[in-house]
């Protein structure tokens, strides 16, 4: 009786150990994937405030901002985040005469700027906190 159990369990042990290793490697992989080598000294970008490892989806530490940037769950956005609490097209950041403006695109769960729910188009300033879904970004403008 014990022999049979032991022989069955040895396979189970090995499977569990390898699943364990695999799940840890996957977590670490998600962690590394987000590190982008670009330097962001004198540009404008969004910086992730959450700790990346705590999020169950891929997200980068930094997102540089261009003339017009869409953020959402859909693949046609400039910033794609597969967070279920983010809408397909969630928000837009647009540059106009050197200033950056944030606009919510009628998203289901809304966009929050420094804790306030966004109703209208708002001009962004350095150090603003933008919350969407489960994540929070810091707006950094070094221009």
């Amino acid at each position, binding site marked *: 009786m014990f022999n049979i*159990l*032991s*022989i069955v369990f*040895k396979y189970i042990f090995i499977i569990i*150990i*390898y699943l364990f290793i695999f799940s*840890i490697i996957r977590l*670490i992989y998600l962690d590394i994937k987000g590190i982008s080598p670009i330097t962001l000294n004198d540009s404008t970008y969004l910086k992730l405030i959450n700790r990346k490892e*705590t999020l169950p989806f891929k997200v980068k530490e930094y997102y540089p901002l261009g003339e017009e940037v869409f953020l959402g769950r859909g693949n046609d956005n400039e910033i794609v985040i597969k967070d279920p609490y983010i809408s397909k097209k969630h928000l837009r950041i647009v540059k106009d005469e050197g200033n950056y403006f944030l606009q919510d695109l009628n998203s289901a769960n809304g966009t929050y700027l420094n804790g306030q729910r966004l109703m209208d188009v708002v001009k962004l300033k350095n150090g603003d906190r933008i919350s969407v879904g489960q994540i929070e970004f810091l707006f950094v403008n070094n221009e």
Partner: protein
Amino acid sequence: MFSKGINYKVPRNLLFIFEMIALFLMFMYYKNSLDRSTIIYGLSLIFIVYISNFLLLKITTGDNYIFLIVTMLSSIGIIMIYRINPQQGFKQIVWIGLGIVLFFATYFMIKKIKSLKSWFIYYFFASIALFGMTLLLGERFKGAINWISIGGITFQPTEVIKILTIFLIASYYANYDKFKEKKWGNYYLVGIMYLFIFFLFLQRDLGSVLIFSSLFLALQYIYHEDRKLVLLNFAVLILSSILGYIIFPHVRIRFEIWINPWEHIDTTGYQITQSLFAIAEGGFFGTGLGLGHPDFIPEVSKDFIFSAICEEMGILTGIGIIMLFLILVYRGFKISINQKNKFFRIVALGISILFGIQSFIIFGGVVKMIPLTGITIPFVSYGGSSMLSSFIALGILQVASEELDIEEV
């Protein structure tokens, strides 16, 4: 946040399932000689491990992988130790429990203390005091003096000195600019390390000599500005190992066993050949727990635990353990790279190198890849001092993984 750490559940639960199955199997194996306290201790250890992994995710802002990996390693270790010898297994359960407590204690303590990096001289004198105690009060055990017993408690001072040495080296290089200005300041650390290695030679603790010198060389190679000195140290190490081979007969014996253990199978080579038989016997999937004969190997629960695991749980588990160590050391390096504070950066690097080298020396030793020196595998082997000091080192590594608010002077 609603789903904070959602994916950490996977490895945590896998670990839990693994431990429960193992516990069940062990009780089936020892069902005739069960006593209740073992069950309670085993279950509470599983509970502590699960809770600790859960709590750590909430407490720390740093790394969350290293503790998971380490608890997996000690779970594999304890299953094997318990199967070989229930009394030792029972003690080991207590050691791991204490180790986890110490891990958290170290974590909170090290975070509080702000002036660790300027205590160079204290680390030095504490190490010397421990070395002195070992030589005066030590008991010779299998050729090496590395045990002392005070009031019924026996422990290995070298395990403590390892951590002190890492602190010593780190505080030296963190204050390197200050030391450089002094006369001979460049040679302080080298002198101290040779003194330590000399002490270890007096104790005839070859495994520790190897650990200390490689730890020192690795850190010196990374941080020392005088490159000639680093090369010189390499040369001295090679020369002294050749000298050791000529002078000390027990070094020569180790080397001869490594070249050809089959000639000495009935005497000095018995251990290593039994280890090789055990690994070969196990094959890919092992014989199954309780169905092999790991007890043929002398010292199986300490130095040769790896062979026992390979025999009963298969070489795949053995490879798994090596991979776990690989990830652990990788995380250690990553922590070190991310750490801004120079002292903790060197400490993190030192601890990862320590784990890496220790596991490499013993894994390499039992599979006859390098000459065998008897040391323990951190977190896996049986032994109180080794388990506790490894958990303390892990606690320090956990602190180093966080962003610290200690100002850089």
